[in-house]
């Protein structure tokens, strides 16, 4: 020990161990194991049972057969993909555009930055109720404003063709502030020298955007895409607060189907749905994450 001090702060293996003890993992680990890992593993068993919380009866693959033969599930499945990709796509586009705007020379920049972030602070239920009223097909502010300029707006949340996209739009409205924030941070991390060099080469505007900004802001893009995909594919509260999966089943997603099964007391079936959602989310997010990160390393 004394020797280590004398030479240079070059701590031994032993002191590293005691400085950064493994037991620091334990408090978080206990919570994680008990309330997350155990239920997740248990779900792989309960998904194969008919379960009333009191009685468990093993039924093999029956739940999955039921789940997949459920006609609403086909809608739920496609809707989950549509919802996940539409919301994350729009958040990337609007988030980046807003971030570019808000990092440039602009009047009232501080105000704009705050205002874009405000919706993030409102709860999904609050946003849901508010937009249900704003999007009311007849008395709602949106359609009465459109009418004033001679456009007949769609029935938004109550039109089977529009319902899912309307919720997705609300989701983007609510979540774009986070995406913008991440992009602002990402843009700030791009060294100015690149732009200066480009200026020397006579490049500007779009060229800069395509060749400097977009590639260098990729880590932020990866974060935005992954966070909104994870959120979008699992999304429940906003859909439940606005359409409850309706009209009919037209805006149902996997998470809302799971909740309905749970409500009906089909605990085994609901848990099977959880397993399906787990597989879907993992099957999409893991490759996307791999792709986004690998490309970054290559360069």
């Amino acid at each position, binding site marked *: 020990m004394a020797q280590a001090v004398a030479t240079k702060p070059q701590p031994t293996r032993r002191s590293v161990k005691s400085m950064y003890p493994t037991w620091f993992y334990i408090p978080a680990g206990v919570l994680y194991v008990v309330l997350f890992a155990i239920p997740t593993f248990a779900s792989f068993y309960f998904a194969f049972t008919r379960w009333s919380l009191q009685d468990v009866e093993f039924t093999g693959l029956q739940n999955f057969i039921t789940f997949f033969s459920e006609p609403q599930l086909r809608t739920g499945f496609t809707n989950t993909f549509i919802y996940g990709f539409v919301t994350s796509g729009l958040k990337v586009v609007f988030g980046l555009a807003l971030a570019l705007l808000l990092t440039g*020379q602009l009047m009232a920049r501080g105000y704009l930055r705050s205002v874009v972030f405000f919706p993030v602070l409102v709860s999904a239920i609050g946003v849901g109720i508010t937009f249900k009223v704003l999007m009311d097909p007849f008395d709602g502010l949106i359609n009465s404003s459109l009418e004033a300029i001679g456009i007949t707006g769609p029935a938004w949340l109550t039109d089977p063709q529009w319902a899912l996209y309307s919720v997705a739009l609300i989701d983007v409205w609510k979540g774009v502030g986070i995406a913008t924030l991440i992009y*602002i941070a990402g843009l700030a991390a791009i060294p100015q020298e690149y732009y200066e060099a480009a200026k020397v080469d006579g490049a500007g505007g779009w060229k800069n955007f395509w060749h400097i900004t977009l590639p260098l802001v990729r880590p932020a893009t990866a974060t935005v895409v992954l966070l909104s995909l994870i959120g979008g594919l699992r999304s429940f509260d906003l859909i439940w607060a606005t359409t409850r999966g309706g009209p009919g089943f037209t805006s149902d997603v996997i998470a809302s189907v799971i909740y309905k099964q749970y409500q009906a007391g089909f605990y085994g079936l609901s848990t099977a749905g959880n397993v399906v959602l787990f597989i879907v989310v993992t099957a999409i997010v893991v490759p996307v994450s791999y792709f986004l990160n690998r490309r970054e390393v290559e360069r």
Partner: protein
Amino acid sequence: MRRRAKIRGIVVGSISIVLSVIIFIVPFAFIFLTASKTAAEAALFGFTLPTEWALVENLTEVLTIRNGLIVRAFINSTVITVLSVVLMVVFAAMVGYVLQRRRSRWNPVVNFLVLAGLIVPPAVVPTIWVLQTLGLFATIPGLIFIQATFGLSFCVLLFRAFVSTIPKELDEAATIDGAGPLRIFFGVVAPLLRPVIITVVVVQAVAVFNDFTGPLYFLPGDENATVQLTLYNFQSQTLNQWNLLFMDILLITIPPLVMYIFFNRQIVAGMTSGAVKG
């Protein structure tokens, strides 16, 4: 050249302001105006100034409904938010710190578990089953632990990224001074984590306070209702009393808004180090 840019800034800025007002301010103004109207006027859904301001009346009515249910819900939500965020911050910071500092064969496992915690949707009914076995189902402590658990992964990622910006020499110097790991962590490292702690606290406090799914599944019953649940239940209870419903929305939006206004700058700083470089 510079003047042109300035003019452009003003033009683009003005357009942005107009658009931002339409897209972002109007819905908030709508909430406020509807919350200030009488029941009959609010039911018209109009975007107009109230002909008769009933802001105070609506406020008192909302606060006294069902013997102050909403006040109780506010207390519950505050307790849940504060305690679960404290657990999250302390536990996740400890993990993020050791995870970043020490290379061991545990690292890949822990990293994997953290990512899994971020991606995997929680298995709801089995979680209820575990809580029930522990006697924590439908209790406030139960929900506190749940919220802390579900928030851990995100916090660990932010902490791990931020710890890497703190020079290792600092902890080493402290060791040489004879400090134990707890003293190093809480005395030396934790204060330096301040920026990221603020980010985590704000982001998670808003998330927990605004969470609807958690209480819906894990905290049924009125005596323990959280603000989001009362708002949700309010929909069916206040037939055609949109003014009260929107007053409730207004009330429960204020705490997160205040938090944000206070910590606006720090959030961006924390995000820069965490989410992007991580």
